[in-house]
């Protein structure tokens, strides 16, 4: 038996953990930058979107691809703001905090689900090895 053949499930579960980790990172970035009006490019912060991709051919490990969201910015009236234009409008990132928090919930549940797969698989292998006794 090759040592590496029976680890498929572990690798897949771990890739799920890593992807959810990355997803939570992206959500965290979106939440903490929800009011960022200036990034290094001079523009306000753009919402980052996560896309889950399978690395194998239909079946296998997963990874996250991050892309900047399409669409523009919110225009908010705030004449006192340092980044306000002549009419007193400030361009703000178009980030919906409640929906980001919903995504955060989903991501952390998905993380737990991947942990559950990993744990259950380890238990299954242990049970199988008990047959040797």
């Amino acid at each position: 038996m090759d040592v590496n053949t029976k680890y498929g499930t572990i690798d897949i579960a771990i890739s799920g953990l890593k992807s959810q980790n990355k997803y939570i990172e992206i959500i965290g970035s979106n939440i903490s930058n929800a009011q960022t009006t200036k990034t290094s490019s001079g523009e306000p912060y753009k919402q980052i979107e996560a896309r889950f991709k399978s690395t194998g051919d239909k079946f296998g490990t997963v990874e996250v691809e991050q892309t900047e969201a399409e669409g523009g910015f919110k225009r908010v009236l705030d004449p006192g703001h340092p980044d306000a234009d002549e009419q007193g409008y400030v361009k703000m990132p178009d980030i919906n905090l409640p929906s980001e928090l919903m995504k955060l919930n989903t991501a952390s549940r998905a993380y737990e689900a991947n942990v559950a797969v990993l744990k259950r698989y380890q238990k299954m292998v242990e049970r199988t090895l008990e047959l040797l006794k």
Partner: protein
Amino acid sequence: MINKVNSGFSQAIQNIGKSNSTNKPNQELSKTIKTAGEYLDKVDQQQVNADASVKQMLAGNEDIDSVIAKTAKADMSFKLLVGVRNKLVEAYKQTMNMKI
């Protein structure tokens, strides 16, 4: 520390394999033991890797998920090795205790 114990064990197992290899009827068992010795080397390598990745993580160069993956694999392989080893020893004992 584990690798030292492992390499000692590996040598012992290989010695058993060698001493038996001249005996024609016993070749199957010696082959099994040799394969077990090779598998033990793989398990040892996995444990060394897992150990290294823990150190890498503590140094800040690796994320915890990879460490979990490597330790889980090493743990499972080790359990399989122990299971096979126990079974082999048991078979040996049963053979030796056979009434002739």
